[in-house]
């Protein structure tokens, strides 16, 4: 296993950073998708429109 992926990563540690940043980005992306979906569900439940326009 020394010469495999682990060995490569040990010699080129910048790729470990790369993978970590990619995982962080995927996590943020999935979180945003989830939040967006929940917001849509709440908006649907409340029903439109709930505008802040002043009633004169």
């Amino acid at each position, binding site marked *: 296993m020394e010469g495999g992926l682990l060995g490569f990563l040990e010699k080129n540690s910048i790729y470990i950073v790369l993978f970590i940043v*990619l995982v962080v980005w995927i996590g943020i992306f999935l979180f945003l998708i989830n939040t967006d979906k929940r*917001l849509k569900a709440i*908006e649907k439940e409340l029903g439109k429109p709930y*505008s802040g*326009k*002043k009633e004169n």
Partner: protein
Amino acid sequence: MIWKAILFILMCFVIITGISFPIVENPQGWMQFPIIPGLGEKAKIIFFHVPTAWLSVIAFLMAMVYGIRYLRNKNLDEDAKSAAALQLGMMFCILATVTGSIWAKFNWGTFWNWDPRETSIFILLLIYGSLFALRSAVENEDKRARLSAVYSIIAFLTVPFFIFIMPRIMLGLHPGSLEIDPNSGKIVQGTSPVVDFKMNGNMRLVFFVSLAAFTILYWWMWKVRYRSIIIQEYISKK
């Protein structure tokens, strides 16, 4: 939905190329970046630090635009959009300060040097920080929206000066500032990757893709934020 997929791909592209492409003296292949004098490997910060500063300008601009729209039609939704932009602008402004400060420690020796660029972002943080204090101090929502709109218009007038002009007309350490030429002793325009783009074609491509990706990300965050503010206000009025 397509733009979310585009954002995901663009950001992955920026992360993979921005981190893994090596910086070499004479770039031969398409997957090599050139050395920028005085920056070395640390030049890669440009793909992640500059977009945060860029987004704070975009956010403060949007806060002003929606502030003007609120003053025109007195719709509190516009105030929610302006407030969401302000919050994100502040967040990205803090991120730009922190990332720049960490970089400064390793490039200039200390975390904080009162360089013109650092001073100007500090003043911007104070200006916009006081806007949050103002918003939280006013309970009447119409009054709060009106004051916030007027303040965000006036505050944005200072942004071009503090971000684009002041750091470029003063002597400083940050790329883009004026420098003293060691040979002639005269004040000259700095050798900056930000101003005169001493980047090669592919580095410039990654940089602009990064700006685009971060802008789409901001757009998404802003939409989620203002929609949640509108819902929150709607529920609190019920």
